[in-house]
């Protein structure tokens, strides 16, 4: 626990001094997942995927294709039946061991905030668990509130905030310990369309200001194309990678991109692929 605490503090310090990239690559090799016994349904079948450091990757697919399962395996929330997931250090290129798992920040579909904690203390939760001192926690949560555009609401309680604001708090919490990978499981799925688009823009801004590796799960094709460096299209029965599409639009991308013919073409093509997988 002590070593964890030290590492937490050291990394916080580093983040403030230099503006360098806190990111790690992810290497998914031969990951399979079956639920239940050996004969159970195959959710994921021999997935191989290399995600480079600082990349924004989106898993896109119909419900039931195992995209969330794959994300949860990467996040260590569930164990694969076969295969392994490794983090690759950005600087040294070395594969880190399992303790690298505490470098992962998770954002879920629901904000999952603690109603009894005010916003600042919700953001500080991961730091508390890493035994970061109180003064350092306060400074950090103030920084993060500013980063996600919620200055001044630190002393409010979750129920006083709108859905979009709560999800920003959840993102700030996930970023609090400066993770090298951010895993997002349909984080904007519960929001209305307009808030969703705005959150996409916000997330891109965050990612540019504070580079990290992002793995983002969605079933919205435009959202995927808007956000991603690469869209990984997953197909179901069994869950596997159907295609990987590189998205090369310049950043920062704006909402005007939705009207760009090239953008529309990619969206249509992905839609066709999705539909053909369904047949």
């Amino acid at each position: 626990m002590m070593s964890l605490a030290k590492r937490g503090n050291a990394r916080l310090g580093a983040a403030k001094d230099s503006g360098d990239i806190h990111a790690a690559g992810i290497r998914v090799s031969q990951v399979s997942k079956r639920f239940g016994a050996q004969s159970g349904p195959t959710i994921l079948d021999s997935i191989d995927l290399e995600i480079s450091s600082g990349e924004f990757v989106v898993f896109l697919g119909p419900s039931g294709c195992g995209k969330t399962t794959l994300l949860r395996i990467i996040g260590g929330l569930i164990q694969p039946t076969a295969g392994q997931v490794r983090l690759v250090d950005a600087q040294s290129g070395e594969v880190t061991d399992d303790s690298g798992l505490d470098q992962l920040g998770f954002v879920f579909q629901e904000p999952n905030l603690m109603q009894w904690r005010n916003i600042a203390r919700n953001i500080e939760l991961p730091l508390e668990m890493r035994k970061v001192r109180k003064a350092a926690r306060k400074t950090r949560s103030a920084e993060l509130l500013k980063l996600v555009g919620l200055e001044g609401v630190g002393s409010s309680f979750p129920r006083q905030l709108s859905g979009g604001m709560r999800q920003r708090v959840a993102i700030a919490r996930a970023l609090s310990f400066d993770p090298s990978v951010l895993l997002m499981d349909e984080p904007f799925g519960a929001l209305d369309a307009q808030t969703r688009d705005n959150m996409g823009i916000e997330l891109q801004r965050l990612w540019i200001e504070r580079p990290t590796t992002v793995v983002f799960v969605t079933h919205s094709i435009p959202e995927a194309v808007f956000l991603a460096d690469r869209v990984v299209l997953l197909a179901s029965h069994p869950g596997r990678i159907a295609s990987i599409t590189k998205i090369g639009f310049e950043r920062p991308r704006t909402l005007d991109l939705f009207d760009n013919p090239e953008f529309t073409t990619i969206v249509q093509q992905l839609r066709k692929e999705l539909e053909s997988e369904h047949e």
Partner: protein
Amino acid sequence: MNNTISRRNRVRTRAVAGLSPAPDGRNSGGRSSWTNVWQSRWLAYVSTPIIVVLALLAWQLYINVSGISKFVLPSPWEVFGAFFHMIQQPYIWQLHVWTTLVETILGFIIGFLLGVTGGYLMGKFRPVEAIANPFVVASQVVPKVALVPLFILWFGFDISSKIAIASLLAFFPILVNTSFGIRSVSPAMGEMMTSLRATMWQRFRKLEIPHMTPYVLTGAEMGMILSLIGAIVGEYLAGDRGLGRLAVQLQNDLQVPELYGSILLMTLLGFALYSIFAVLRRVLIPWHESVLIRQRDS
């Protein structure tokens, strides 16, 4: 303490009012002051005394009109007279109120500790619940007051039998509410804690305890009153002290105004014990709906 918390909360609500679309409908600007009185919780401060005074007048009127015997229903003035006389007697406090209070509090503490522990284990671990549940249900449907004579047989005539009865009565609502509270921790919150690599202790301390506090308080509130009932019923049947014993004694002696007075005393004791929890709610869970709603209306 109480006041600072509510004031702080109100300021918080105001601070974000401009940011979120008024989640609690606080835009009460245009209402007339009468509507405000009608809808606020201050209404109770006006209506309660009025209703009590009306009831007392009706009581007095009934006695005057019906000519009922004062051994059945004495007048309110006689009752209050007897009551104020009683509460000036030191032995009422030292012998009766104190005994009942000790039995109630000790019984409550035992019932609380067992109820919270049992409820936590049942809510947290499925097998424990599966094994314990039939017995919990069975013992809940037994009219527990019917067991009082047995308890007196087992524990004797002194306060230990009343403490046992009080703790038994306090136990069940606390057990059931705690168990429900721990089961209502959402799996998503649990998963969030897992994603943060929370230890068992951190999960307990930072998620489970705060989450179940409102549930435990609800159970404890009921448990405290049931504990008082248990103590008094126990005293009715055995022993030589306590408010229940006092009431029986007064009934035997046909001191009817004093009997009414002793009932008033028990009511006030129950009220005092109950209000502990109103304070605890505001101190321990100022964030919870049950507290916020009251503040919003004030």
